[in-house]
Protein backbone atom coordinates (compact mmCIF):
# COMPACT_ATOMS: atom_id res chain seq x y z
CA UNK A 1 0.00 0.00 0.00
CA UNK A 2 1.76 3.14 -1.17
CA UNK A 3 1.23 6.76 -0.17
CA UNK A 4 -1.16 7.55 -2.98
CA UNK A 5 -3.54 4.77 -2.00
CA UNK A 6 -3.51 5.76 1.67
CA UNK A 7 -4.31 9.37 0.86
CA UNK A 8 -7.02 8.35 -1.59
CA UNK A 9 -8.69 6.05 0.91
CA UNK A 10 -8.47 8.77 3.58
CA UNK A 11 -9.99 11.24 1.15
CA UNK A 12 -12.91 8.92 0.41
CA UNK A 13 -13.41 8.33 4.15
CA UNK A 14 -13.41 12.06 4.84
CA UNK A 15 -15.97 12.53 2.06
CA UNK A 16 -18.20 9.83 3.56
CA UNK A 17 -17.90 11.24 7.10
CA UNK A 18 -18.71 14.72 5.82
CA UNK A 19 -21.67 13.43 3.82
CA UNK A 20 -23.06 11.67 6.87
CA UNK A 21 -22.61 14.77 8.99
CA UNK A 22 -24.22 17.07 6.44
CA UNK A 23 -27.26 14.83 6.22
CA UNK A 24 -27.60 13.67 9.83
CA UNK A 25 -26.50 16.56 12.03
CA UNK A 26 -29.16 18.91 13.41
CA UNK A 27 -27.22 22.11 14.26
CA UNK A 28 -26.82 24.24 11.14
CA UNK A 29 -23.25 25.23 11.92
CA UNK A 30 -22.24 21.60 12.22
CA UNK A 31 -23.83 20.80 8.86
CA UNK A 32 -21.89 23.60 7.18
CA UNK A 33 -18.67 22.31 8.72
CA UNK A 34 -19.55 18.78 7.60
CA UNK A 35 -19.94 20.02 4.02
CA UNK A 36 -16.45 21.50 4.34
CA UNK A 37 -15.09 18.14 5.42
CA UNK A 38 -16.75 16.57 2.37
CA UNK A 39 -14.98 19.11 0.20
CA UNK A 40 -11.64 18.40 1.84
CA UNK A 41 -12.13 14.70 1.11
CA UNK A 42 -12.61 15.46 -2.58
CA UNK A 43 -9.55 17.72 -2.62
CA UNK A 44 -7.48 14.99 -1.00
CA UNK A 45 -8.53 12.46 -3.64
CA UNK A 46 -7.56 14.93 -6.36
CA UNK A 47 -4.20 15.84 -4.81
CA UNK A 48 -3.33 12.19 -4.15
CA UNK A 49 -4.00 11.47 -7.80
CA UNK A 50 -1.73 14.33 -8.85
CA UNK A 51 1.36 12.46 -7.62
CA UNK A 52 3.17 11.05 -10.62
CA UNK A 53 5.93 8.61 -9.62
CA UNK A 54 8.66 8.90 -12.23
CA UNK A 55 10.77 5.92 -13.11
CA UNK A 56 14.39 6.89 -12.55
CA UNK A 57 14.09 10.68 -12.18
CA UNK A 58 12.45 12.74 -9.45
CA UNK A 59 8.72 12.34 -8.85
CA UNK A 60 6.56 15.14 -10.29
CA UNK A 61 3.10 16.50 -9.66
CA UNK A 62 0.23 17.03 -12.08
CA UNK A 63 -0.30 20.81 -12.07
CA UNK A 64 -3.84 20.56 -13.50
CA UNK A 65 -5.08 18.67 -10.43
CA UNK A 66 -3.49 21.28 -8.18
CA UNK A 67 -5.19 24.05 -10.11
CA UNK A 68 -8.52 22.25 -9.74
CA UNK A 69 -8.07 21.95 -5.97
CA UNK A 70 -7.12 25.60 -5.67
CA UNK A 71 -10.27 26.61 -7.54
CA UNK A 72 -12.29 24.21 -5.42
CA UNK A 73 -10.95 25.80 -2.23
CA UNK A 74 -11.93 29.27 -3.42
CA UNK A 75 -15.47 28.04 -4.17
CA UNK A 76 -15.69 26.27 -0.79
CA UNK A 77 -14.59 29.43 1.05
CA UNK A 78 -17.25 31.55 -0.67
CA UNK A 79 -19.97 28.98 -0.05
CA UNK A 80 -18.98 28.67 3.62
CA UNK A 81 -18.97 32.46 4.00
CA UNK A 82 -22.49 32.67 2.58
CA UNK A 83 -23.65 29.83 4.83
CA UNK A 84 -22.22 31.44 7.98
CA UNK A 85 -23.73 34.80 7.04
CA UNK A 86 -27.12 33.14 6.61
CA UNK A 87 -26.85 31.43 10.01
CA UNK A 88 -26.04 34.81 11.62
CA UNK A 89 -29.00 36.45 9.84
CA UNK A 90 -31.30 33.69 10.96
CA UNK A 91 -30.22 34.17 14.58
CA UNK A 92 -30.72 37.93 14.30
CA UNK A 93 -34.19 37.50 12.83
CA UNK A 94 -35.14 34.86 15.41
CA UNK A 95 -34.03 37.03 18.35
CA UNK A 96 -35.63 40.10 16.74
CA UNK A 97 -38.91 38.18 16.50
CA UNK A 98 -38.78 37.28 20.15
CA UNK A 99 -38.15 40.79 21.53
CA UNK A 100 -41.46 42.48 20.61
CA UNK A 101 -43.76 39.96 22.30
CA UNK A 102 -42.84 39.50 25.96
Amino acid at each position, binding site marked *: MNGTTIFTVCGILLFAIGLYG*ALAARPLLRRILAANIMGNGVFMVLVAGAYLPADGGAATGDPVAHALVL*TGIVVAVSATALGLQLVCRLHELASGDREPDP
Partner: protein
Amino acid sequence: MNAAAGASLLLPLLVSVPLLGGLASFVLGGRGRWVAVGALALNAILAALLLAATRAGPLGYALGDWPAPLGITLGADGMAALFVAVSALVTLVAGTYSLAYFAGGSATDRVFWPLWCLLLAALNTLFITRDLFNAYVGIEVLGLSAIALVTLAGDAGAVRAALRYLLVSLVGSLCYLMGVALIYRAHGVLDVGALAGISGATPPEQVALALMSAGLLLKTALFPLHFWLPEAHASAPAPVSAALSALVLKGTFFVLLRLWFEVLPATAGPAAATTEAVLGAAAIAWGSFMAARAPRLKRLVAYSTVAQIGYLFLLFPLLEAGPAQAAALDAVVYFVLAHACAKAAMFLAAGNVQSAAGHDRIDDLRGDALPGAGTQFALAFAGISLIGLPPTGGFAAKWMLLQGAAEAGAWWLFAVALGGALLAAVYVFRVLARSFDLTSMLAGRAAPRLARVSACREWSALVLALASLALGLVAGPLLSGIHGAGFALIR
Protein backbone atom coordinates in the same frame (compact mmCIF):
# COMPACT_ATOMS: atom_id res chain seq x y z
CA MET B 1 -13.71 30.52 -42.21
CA ASN B 2 -13.64 34.12 -41.04
CA ALA B 3 -17.37 34.11 -40.47
CA ALA B 4 -17.07 30.95 -38.38
CA ALA B 5 -14.30 32.51 -36.28
CA GLY B 6 -16.48 35.58 -35.78
CA ALA B 7 -19.43 33.43 -34.75
CA SER B 8 -17.25 31.54 -32.25
CA LEU B 9 -16.58 34.84 -30.48
CA LEU B 10 -20.23 34.75 -29.39
CA LEU B 11 -19.36 32.04 -26.87
CA PRO B 12 -16.96 33.99 -24.64
CA LEU B 13 -19.18 37.06 -25.02
CA LEU B 14 -22.21 35.13 -23.71
CA VAL B 15 -20.35 34.55 -20.44
CA SER B 16 -18.55 37.86 -20.14
CA VAL B 17 -21.41 40.24 -21.02
CA PRO B 18 -23.68 39.21 -18.11
CA LEU B 19 -20.67 38.86 -15.80
CA LEU B 20 -19.35 42.35 -16.56
CA GLY B 21 -22.89 43.74 -16.50
CA GLY B 22 -23.35 42.30 -13.01
CA LEU B 23 -20.06 43.73 -11.76
CA ALA B 24 -20.80 47.15 -13.26
CA SER B 25 -24.27 47.26 -11.74
CA PHE B 26 -22.76 46.40 -8.35
CA VAL B 27 -20.22 49.22 -8.60
CA LEU B 28 -22.77 51.76 -9.80
CA GLY B 29 -25.22 51.00 -6.96
CA GLY B 30 -28.45 52.97 -7.40
CA ARG B 31 -28.14 53.46 -11.15
CA GLY B 32 -26.88 49.91 -11.65
CA ARG B 33 -30.28 48.54 -12.67
CA TRP B 34 -30.11 50.18 -16.09
CA VAL B 35 -26.64 48.78 -16.77
CA ALA B 36 -27.94 45.35 -15.79
CA VAL B 37 -30.99 45.64 -18.06
CA GLY B 38 -28.66 46.74 -20.86
CA ALA B 39 -26.54 43.64 -20.29
CA LEU B 40 -29.66 41.44 -20.33
CA ALA B 41 -30.80 43.00 -23.62
CA LEU B 42 -27.34 42.59 -25.16
CA ASN B 43 -27.29 38.98 -23.97
CA ALA B 44 -30.64 38.38 -25.66
CA ILE B 45 -29.22 39.68 -28.96
CA LEU B 46 -26.15 37.45 -28.57
CA ALA B 47 -28.39 34.46 -27.84
CA ALA B 48 -30.42 35.10 -31.00
CA LEU B 49 -27.20 35.34 -33.03
CA LEU B 50 -25.99 32.08 -31.47
CA LEU B 51 -29.25 30.38 -32.37
CA ALA B 52 -28.80 31.48 -35.98
CA ALA B 53 -25.10 30.58 -36.09
CA THR B 54 -25.52 27.02 -34.73
CA ARG B 55 -27.89 26.17 -37.61
CA ALA B 56 -24.79 25.62 -39.74
CA GLY B 57 -23.13 23.36 -37.18
CA PRO B 58 -21.64 23.49 -33.69
CA LEU B 59 -19.32 26.31 -32.68
CA GLY B 60 -16.17 25.93 -30.62
CA TYR B 61 -13.83 28.36 -28.89
CA ALA B 62 -10.59 27.60 -27.04
CA LEU B 63 -10.14 30.04 -24.16
CA GLY B 64 -6.80 31.86 -24.35
CA ASP B 65 -6.01 29.81 -27.46
CA TRP B 66 -5.19 26.78 -25.32
CA PRO B 67 -6.63 23.70 -27.03
CA ALA B 68 -8.69 21.02 -25.33
CA PRO B 69 -6.59 18.64 -23.22
CA LEU B 70 -4.88 21.41 -21.25
CA GLY B 71 -7.13 24.43 -21.76
CA ILE B 72 -10.86 24.88 -21.32
CA THR B 73 -12.98 25.02 -24.44
CA LEU B 74 -16.44 26.43 -24.96
CA GLY B 75 -18.82 25.00 -27.49
CA ALA B 76 -22.45 25.22 -28.51
CA ASP B 77 -24.65 23.03 -30.65
CA GLY B 78 -28.29 23.53 -31.56
CA MET B 79 -29.53 22.20 -28.22
CA ALA B 80 -27.22 24.44 -26.16
CA ALA B 81 -28.29 27.43 -28.28
CA LEU B 82 -31.96 26.74 -27.50
CA PHE B 83 -31.22 26.59 -23.76
CA VAL B 84 -29.20 29.82 -23.97
CA ALA B 85 -32.04 31.47 -25.89
CA VAL B 86 -34.77 30.53 -23.41
CA SER B 87 -32.60 31.73 -20.49
CA ALA B 88 -32.04 35.00 -22.27
CA LEU B 89 -35.77 35.44 -22.86
CA VAL B 90 -36.85 34.59 -19.32
CA THR B 91 -34.15 36.66 -17.58
CA LEU B 92 -34.89 39.64 -19.81
CA VAL B 93 -38.67 39.56 -19.33
CA ALA B 94 -38.51 38.72 -15.62
CA GLY B 95 -35.86 41.44 -15.34
CA THR B 96 -38.26 43.96 -16.88
CA TYR B 97 -40.85 42.79 -14.35
CA SER B 98 -38.32 43.35 -11.56
CA LEU B 99 -37.88 46.99 -12.60
CA ALA B 100 -41.43 47.52 -11.34
CA TYR B 101 -41.30 44.89 -8.56
CA PHE B 102 -38.33 46.30 -6.62
CA ALA B 103 -38.30 50.00 -5.72
CA GLY B 104 -35.52 51.72 -7.64
CA GLY B 105 -32.48 52.53 -5.50
CA SER B 106 -33.64 50.48 -2.50
CA ALA B 107 -31.15 48.21 -0.74
CA THR B 108 -32.88 45.10 -2.14
CA ASP B 109 -32.79 46.54 -5.64
CA ARG B 110 -29.05 47.21 -5.42
CA VAL B 111 -28.34 43.61 -4.46
CA PHE B 112 -30.81 42.08 -6.89
CA TRP B 113 -29.31 43.21 -10.20
CA PRO B 114 -25.72 42.03 -9.74
CA LEU B 115 -27.00 38.65 -8.54
CA TRP B 116 -29.47 38.41 -11.41
CA CYS B 117 -26.67 38.98 -13.94
CA LEU B 118 -24.41 36.48 -12.15
CA LEU B 119 -27.20 33.91 -12.34
CA LEU B 120 -27.43 34.41 -16.09
CA ALA B 121 -23.64 34.24 -16.52
CA ALA B 122 -23.57 30.93 -14.62
CA LEU B 123 -26.43 29.51 -16.71
CA ASN B 124 -24.71 30.46 -19.96
CA THR B 125 -21.48 28.90 -18.68
CA LEU B 126 -23.24 25.62 -17.94
CA PHE B 127 -24.83 25.53 -21.38
CA ILE B 128 -21.71 26.22 -23.42
CA THR B 129 -18.81 24.82 -21.40
CA ARG B 130 -17.09 21.70 -22.71
CA ASP B 131 -15.16 21.01 -19.51
CA LEU B 132 -16.52 19.02 -16.56
CA PHE B 133 -14.69 21.03 -13.90
CA ASN B 134 -15.70 24.31 -15.47
CA ALA B 135 -19.26 23.00 -15.24
CA TYR B 136 -18.70 22.47 -11.48
CA VAL B 137 -17.72 26.12 -11.08
CA GLY B 138 -20.80 27.08 -13.08
CA ILE B 139 -23.02 24.93 -10.87
CA GLU B 140 -21.61 26.56 -7.73
CA VAL B 141 -21.96 30.12 -9.03
CA LEU B 142 -25.50 29.29 -10.14
CA GLY B 143 -26.38 27.82 -6.75
CA LEU B 144 -24.80 30.60 -4.69
CA SER B 145 -26.43 33.40 -6.66
CA ALA B 146 -29.79 31.62 -6.56
CA ILE B 147 -29.55 31.18 -2.78
CA ALA B 148 -28.60 34.81 -2.25
CA LEU B 149 -31.59 35.84 -4.41
CA VAL B 150 -33.97 33.76 -2.25
CA THR B 151 -32.90 35.71 0.86
CA LEU B 152 -34.03 38.97 -0.77
CA ALA B 153 -37.55 38.24 0.50
CA GLY B 154 -36.06 39.24 3.86
CA ASP B 155 -38.22 37.30 6.33
CA ALA B 156 -37.00 34.50 8.56
CA GLY B 157 -38.85 31.89 6.50
CA ALA B 158 -36.97 32.88 3.36
CA VAL B 159 -33.61 32.83 5.16
CA ARG B 160 -34.40 29.40 6.59
CA ALA B 161 -35.37 28.12 3.14
CA ALA B 162 -32.20 29.62 1.69
CA LEU B 163 -30.01 27.91 4.30
CA ARG B 164 -31.62 24.59 3.56
CA TYR B 165 -31.18 25.21 -0.15
CA LEU B 166 -27.51 26.07 0.47
CA LEU B 167 -26.82 22.85 2.36
CA VAL B 168 -28.59 20.72 -0.25
CA SER B 169 -26.79 22.58 -2.98
CA LEU B 170 -23.38 22.11 -1.33
CA VAL B 171 -23.89 18.39 -0.82
CA GLY B 172 -25.09 18.04 -4.41
CA SER B 173 -22.23 19.91 -5.99
CA LEU B 174 -19.61 18.16 -3.85
CA CYS B 175 -20.99 14.78 -4.94
CA TYR B 176 -20.65 16.03 -8.49
CA LEU B 177 -17.08 17.19 -7.79
CA MET B 178 -16.15 13.79 -6.34
CA GLY B 179 -17.35 12.23 -9.60
CA VAL B 180 -15.23 14.70 -11.55
CA ALA B 181 -12.21 13.77 -9.42
CA LEU B 182 -12.75 10.06 -10.11
CA ILE B 183 -13.09 10.65 -13.85
CA TYR B 184 -9.97 12.78 -13.87
CA ARG B 185 -8.04 10.04 -12.09
CA ALA B 186 -9.32 7.41 -14.51
CA HIS B 187 -8.73 9.28 -17.76
CA GLY B 188 -6.59 12.35 -17.05
CA VAL B 189 -8.88 14.61 -19.10
CA LEU B 190 -12.02 16.59 -18.31
CA ASP B 191 -12.92 17.74 -21.81
CA VAL B 192 -16.35 16.51 -22.86
CA GLY B 193 -15.31 15.82 -26.44
CA ALA B 194 -12.17 13.88 -25.43
CA LEU B 195 -14.04 11.83 -22.82
CA ALA B 196 -16.85 10.96 -25.20
CA GLY B 197 -14.41 8.97 -27.31
CA ILE B 198 -12.65 7.00 -24.56
CA SER B 199 -15.21 6.40 -21.82
CA GLY B 200 -16.55 2.92 -21.24
CA ALA B 201 -18.32 1.12 -18.43
CA THR B 202 -15.53 0.46 -15.92
CA PRO B 203 -16.26 0.51 -12.16
CA PRO B 204 -14.62 3.94 -11.53
CA GLU B 205 -16.73 5.44 -14.27
CA GLN B 206 -19.88 3.85 -12.92
CA VAL B 207 -19.18 5.14 -9.40
CA ALA B 208 -18.37 8.56 -10.83
CA LEU B 209 -21.58 8.67 -12.86
CA ALA B 210 -23.62 7.52 -9.87
CA LEU B 211 -22.13 10.25 -7.65
CA MET B 212 -22.49 12.97 -10.27
CA SER B 213 -26.05 11.92 -11.08
CA ALA B 214 -27.01 11.86 -7.41
CA GLY B 215 -25.61 15.34 -6.91
CA LEU B 216 -27.26 16.74 -10.02
CA LEU B 217 -30.59 15.04 -9.32
CA LEU B 218 -30.58 16.58 -5.85
CA LYS B 219 -30.10 20.01 -7.43
CA THR B 220 -32.61 19.31 -10.22
CA ALA B 221 -35.10 18.27 -7.51
CA LEU B 222 -36.27 14.97 -8.95
CA PHE B 223 -38.70 13.21 -6.60
CA PRO B 224 -37.86 12.15 -3.83
CA LEU B 225 -34.97 14.64 -3.75
CA HIS B 226 -37.34 17.58 -4.22
CA PHE B 227 -37.92 18.18 -0.48
CA TRP B 228 -36.07 21.51 -0.45
CA LEU B 229 -37.77 22.95 -3.52
CA PRO B 230 -41.32 24.01 -2.54
CA GLU B 231 -40.14 26.09 0.42
CA ALA B 232 -37.29 27.79 -1.44
CA HIS B 233 -39.27 28.50 -4.59
CA ALA B 234 -42.40 29.63 -2.74
CA SER B 235 -40.70 31.99 -0.28
CA ALA B 236 -38.49 33.84 -2.81
CA PRO B 237 -39.61 37.13 -4.40
CA ALA B 238 -41.76 36.55 -7.52
CA PRO B 239 -39.18 37.24 -10.27
CA VAL B 240 -36.63 35.11 -8.39
CA SER B 241 -39.10 32.22 -8.09
CA ALA B 242 -39.66 32.50 -11.83
CA ALA B 243 -35.95 32.14 -12.58
CA LEU B 244 -35.45 29.36 -10.02
CA SER B 245 -38.22 27.18 -11.42
CA ALA B 246 -37.81 28.07 -15.07
CA LEU B 247 -34.03 28.13 -15.43
CA VAL B 248 -31.92 27.13 -12.44
CA LEU B 249 -33.21 23.54 -12.38
CA LYS B 250 -32.67 23.30 -16.14
CA GLY B 251 -29.02 24.29 -15.76
CA THR B 252 -28.21 21.19 -13.74
CA PHE B 253 -30.56 19.10 -15.87
CA PHE B 254 -28.60 20.12 -18.96
CA VAL B 255 -25.33 18.93 -17.38
CA LEU B 256 -27.02 15.66 -16.46
CA LEU B 257 -28.24 15.18 -20.04
CA ARG B 258 -24.76 15.77 -21.47
CA LEU B 259 -23.22 13.48 -18.89
CA TRP B 260 -25.54 10.55 -19.54
CA PHE B 261 -25.77 10.69 -23.29
CA GLU B 262 -22.57 12.34 -24.45
CA VAL B 263 -19.73 12.07 -21.91
CA LEU B 264 -20.45 8.58 -20.53
CA PRO B 265 -22.92 7.11 -23.02
CA ALA B 266 -22.10 3.49 -22.30
CA THR B 267 -21.81 3.72 -18.52
CA ALA B 268 -25.40 3.74 -17.32
CA GLY B 269 -27.38 0.63 -18.15
CA PRO B 270 -31.04 0.45 -19.09
CA ALA B 271 -31.92 -0.32 -15.46
CA ALA B 272 -30.60 3.07 -14.32
CA ALA B 273 -32.52 4.87 -17.06
CA THR B 274 -35.71 3.02 -16.14
CA THR B 275 -35.22 4.01 -12.49
CA GLU B 276 -35.07 7.65 -13.56
CA ALA B 277 -38.27 7.23 -15.53
CA VAL B 278 -40.07 5.59 -12.61
CA LEU B 279 -38.95 8.42 -10.32
CA GLY B 280 -40.16 10.85 -12.98
CA ALA B 281 -43.59 9.20 -13.01
CA ALA B 282 -43.69 9.31 -9.20
CA ALA B 283 -42.72 13.00 -9.33
CA ILE B 284 -45.64 13.74 -11.67
CA ALA B 285 -48.10 12.00 -9.36
CA TRP B 286 -46.77 13.40 -6.08
CA GLY B 287 -46.09 16.93 -7.34
CA SER B 288 -49.56 17.21 -8.89
CA PHE B 289 -51.23 15.77 -5.80
CA MET B 290 -49.48 18.23 -3.51
CA ALA B 291 -50.20 21.09 -5.92
CA ALA B 292 -53.89 20.22 -5.87
CA ARG B 293 -53.86 20.39 -2.07
CA ALA B 294 -51.61 23.45 -1.66
CA PRO B 295 -53.27 26.24 0.33
CA ARG B 296 -51.27 29.03 -1.30
CA LEU B 297 -50.84 29.98 -4.93
CA LYS B 298 -47.04 30.20 -4.93
CA ARG B 299 -46.71 26.85 -3.22
CA LEU B 300 -49.08 25.35 -5.78
CA VAL B 301 -46.91 26.65 -8.60
CA ALA B 302 -43.78 25.34 -6.85
CA TYR B 303 -45.25 21.85 -6.50
CA SER B 304 -46.29 21.99 -10.12
CA THR B 305 -42.57 22.39 -10.90
CA VAL B 306 -41.87 19.16 -9.00
CA ALA B 307 -44.38 17.44 -11.27
CA GLN B 308 -43.11 19.00 -14.49
CA ILE B 309 -39.51 18.02 -13.72
CA GLY B 310 -40.82 14.44 -13.75
CA TYR B 311 -41.62 14.66 -17.47
CA LEU B 312 -37.98 15.43 -18.27
CA PHE B 313 -36.87 12.15 -16.72
CA LEU B 314 -39.72 10.09 -18.12
CA LEU B 315 -37.90 9.99 -21.42
CA PHE B 316 -34.54 8.69 -20.23
CA PRO B 317 -35.13 5.05 -21.28
CA LEU B 318 -36.06 6.20 -24.78
CA LEU B 319 -32.95 8.38 -25.03
CA GLU B 320 -30.79 5.47 -23.99
CA ALA B 321 -31.22 3.34 -27.09
CA GLY B 322 -33.66 2.31 -29.73
CA PRO B 323 -35.54 3.83 -32.61
CA ALA B 324 -37.20 6.65 -30.68
CA GLN B 325 -34.06 8.57 -29.66
CA ALA B 326 -34.63 11.52 -31.96
CA ALA B 327 -38.26 11.99 -30.97
CA ALA B 328 -37.36 11.60 -27.28
CA LEU B 329 -34.63 14.24 -27.49
CA ASP B 330 -37.03 16.61 -29.25
CA ALA B 331 -39.57 16.03 -26.51
CA VAL B 332 -37.08 16.60 -23.65
CA VAL B 333 -35.79 19.85 -25.15
CA TYR B 334 -39.32 21.04 -25.84
CA PHE B 335 -40.50 20.24 -22.33
CA VAL B 336 -37.66 22.39 -21.03
CA LEU B 337 -38.53 25.31 -23.30
CA ALA B 338 -42.28 25.14 -22.74
CA HIS B 339 -41.97 24.70 -18.99
CA ALA B 340 -39.47 27.56 -18.71
CA CYS B 341 -41.84 30.04 -20.38
CA ALA B 342 -45.05 28.78 -18.79
CA LYS B 343 -43.67 28.45 -15.27
CA ALA B 344 -41.96 31.83 -15.31
CA ALA B 345 -45.23 33.40 -16.51
CA MET B 346 -47.13 31.66 -13.76
CA PHE B 347 -44.79 32.80 -10.98
CA LEU B 348 -44.82 36.38 -12.27
CA ALA B 349 -48.62 36.28 -12.41
CA ALA B 350 -48.70 34.82 -8.89
CA GLY B 351 -46.57 37.76 -7.76
CA ASN B 352 -49.16 40.11 -9.27
CA VAL B 353 -51.99 38.29 -7.49
CA GLN B 354 -50.13 38.54 -4.21
CA SER B 355 -49.58 42.28 -4.64
CA ALA B 356 -53.16 42.99 -5.71
CA ALA B 357 -54.98 40.87 -3.17
CA GLY B 358 -52.45 41.22 -0.37
CA HIS B 359 -52.19 37.46 0.09
CA ASP B 360 -52.12 34.31 -2.03
CA ARG B 361 -54.43 31.97 -0.09
CA ILE B 362 -56.28 30.36 -2.97
CA ASP B 363 -59.56 29.76 -1.16
CA ASP B 364 -59.82 33.42 -0.12
CA LEU B 365 -59.10 34.87 -3.56
CA ARG B 366 -62.09 36.55 -5.16
CA GLY B 367 -62.43 37.57 -8.79
CA ASP B 368 -62.73 41.26 -8.00
CA ALA B 369 -59.57 41.36 -5.89
CA LEU B 370 -57.44 39.84 -8.64
CA PRO B 371 -55.21 42.06 -10.78
CA GLY B 372 -56.18 42.97 -14.35
CA ALA B 373 -56.91 40.87 -17.40
CA GLY B 374 -53.23 40.59 -18.36
CA THR B 375 -52.40 38.58 -15.27
CA GLN B 376 -55.49 36.40 -15.53
CA PHE B 377 -54.79 35.62 -19.19
CA ALA B 378 -51.18 34.85 -18.26
CA LEU B 379 -52.37 32.37 -15.63
CA ALA B 380 -54.74 30.79 -18.14
CA PHE B 381 -52.30 30.47 -21.05
CA ALA B 382 -49.47 29.24 -18.84
CA GLY B 383 -51.88 26.82 -17.18
CA ILE B 384 -53.06 25.24 -20.40
CA SER B 385 -49.47 24.86 -21.51
CA LEU B 386 -48.69 23.03 -18.26
CA ILE B 387 -51.67 20.74 -18.81
CA GLY B 388 -50.58 20.22 -22.40
CA LEU B 389 -53.64 21.37 -24.30
CA PRO B 390 -53.20 22.48 -27.93
CA PRO B 391 -51.88 24.74 -29.35
CA THR B 392 -49.31 25.41 -26.63
CA GLY B 393 -45.65 24.48 -26.28
CA GLY B 394 -46.63 22.02 -23.58
CA PHE B 395 -48.90 20.25 -26.05
CA ALA B 396 -46.16 20.04 -28.66
CA ALA B 397 -43.78 18.52 -26.11
CA LYS B 398 -46.35 16.01 -24.94
CA TRP B 399 -47.20 15.11 -28.53
CA MET B 400 -43.53 14.36 -29.23
CA LEU B 401 -43.37 12.33 -26.03
CA LEU B 402 -46.30 10.19 -27.15
CA GLN B 403 -44.81 9.88 -30.63
CA GLY B 404 -41.54 8.63 -29.14
CA ALA B 405 -43.38 6.28 -26.79
CA ALA B 406 -45.34 4.83 -29.71
CA GLU B 407 -42.21 4.35 -31.81
CA ALA B 408 -40.47 2.57 -28.95
CA GLY B 409 -43.59 0.64 -27.97
CA ALA B 410 -43.46 2.05 -24.43
CA TRP B 411 -47.21 2.15 -23.93
CA TRP B 412 -47.02 2.77 -20.18
CA LEU B 413 -45.74 6.27 -21.00
CA PHE B 414 -49.14 7.00 -22.55
CA ALA B 415 -50.83 6.28 -19.25
CA VAL B 416 -48.40 8.45 -17.29
CA ALA B 417 -48.59 11.37 -19.73
CA LEU B 418 -52.38 11.35 -19.91
CA GLY B 419 -52.79 10.88 -16.16
CA GLY B 420 -50.32 13.71 -15.61
CA ALA B 421 -52.38 15.97 -17.86
CA LEU B 422 -55.54 15.22 -15.87
CA LEU B 423 -53.79 15.89 -12.57
CA ALA B 424 -52.37 19.14 -13.94
CA ALA B 425 -55.87 20.17 -15.00
CA VAL B 426 -57.02 19.69 -11.41
CA TYR B 427 -54.60 22.20 -9.95
CA VAL B 428 -54.65 24.64 -12.86
CA PHE B 429 -58.45 24.93 -12.90
CA ARG B 430 -58.42 25.34 -9.15
CA VAL B 431 -56.59 28.62 -9.75
CA LEU B 432 -58.52 29.69 -12.84
CA ALA B 433 -61.85 29.15 -11.09
CA ARG B 434 -61.02 31.99 -8.68
CA SER B 435 -61.23 34.50 -11.56
CA PHE B 436 -64.93 33.72 -11.91
CA ASP B 437 -65.75 33.83 -8.23
CA LEU B 438 -67.73 37.04 -8.05
CA THR B 439 -69.85 36.16 -5.00
CA SER B 440 -68.55 38.98 -2.82
CA MET B 441 -69.05 41.55 -5.57
CA LEU B 442 -72.59 40.38 -6.28
CA ALA B 443 -73.36 40.51 -2.59
CA GLY B 444 -72.28 44.16 -2.65
CA ARG B 445 -69.31 43.80 -0.33
CA ALA B 446 -66.48 43.84 -2.81
CA ALA B 447 -63.01 43.15 -1.48
CA PRO B 448 -61.17 45.89 -3.34
CA ARG B 449 -57.67 45.44 -4.68
CA LEU B 450 -55.08 46.48 -2.17
CA ALA B 451 -52.73 47.81 -4.77
CA ARG B 452 -52.74 48.45 -8.47
CA VAL B 453 -50.30 46.26 -10.32
CA SER B 454 -48.33 48.25 -12.87
CA ALA B 455 -48.82 47.57 -16.57
CA CYS B 456 -45.18 46.56 -16.86
CA ARG B 457 -45.71 43.65 -14.46
CA GLU B 458 -48.95 42.58 -16.12
CA TRP B 459 -47.35 42.61 -19.56
CA SER B 460 -44.21 40.79 -18.48
CA ALA B 461 -46.26 37.87 -17.22
CA LEU B 462 -48.43 37.92 -20.33
CA VAL B 463 -45.47 38.06 -22.73
CA LEU B 464 -43.98 34.90 -21.25
CA ALA B 465 -47.36 33.17 -21.30
CA LEU B 466 -47.80 34.15 -24.95
CA ALA B 467 -44.31 32.78 -25.62
CA SER B 468 -45.35 29.42 -24.19
CA LEU B 469 -48.38 29.57 -26.47
CA ALA B 470 -46.31 30.51 -29.52
CA LEU B 471 -43.89 27.65 -28.85
CA GLY B 472 -46.66 25.29 -29.89
CA LEU B 473 -46.69 26.81 -33.36
CA VAL B 474 -42.97 26.90 -34.15
CA ALA B 475 -41.82 23.50 -32.87
CA GLY B 476 -40.69 22.16 -36.25
CA PRO B 477 -38.39 25.03 -37.29
CA LEU B 478 -36.99 25.45 -33.74
CA LEU B 479 -36.08 21.81 -33.32
CA SER B 480 -34.66 21.28 -36.81
CA GLY B 481 -31.33 22.65 -35.53
CA ILE B 482 -30.72 20.06 -32.82
CA HIS B 483 -30.26 17.03 -35.05
CA GLY B 484 -27.37 15.85 -37.12
CA ALA B 485 -25.03 18.76 -36.78
CA GLY B 486 -24.83 18.67 -32.97
CA PHE B 487 -22.22 17.20 -30.65
CA ALA B 488 -23.45 13.68 -31.35
CA LEU B 489 -25.57 13.62 -28.22
CA ILE B 490 -27.56 10.90 -29.89
CA ARG B 491 -25.53 8.63 -32.11
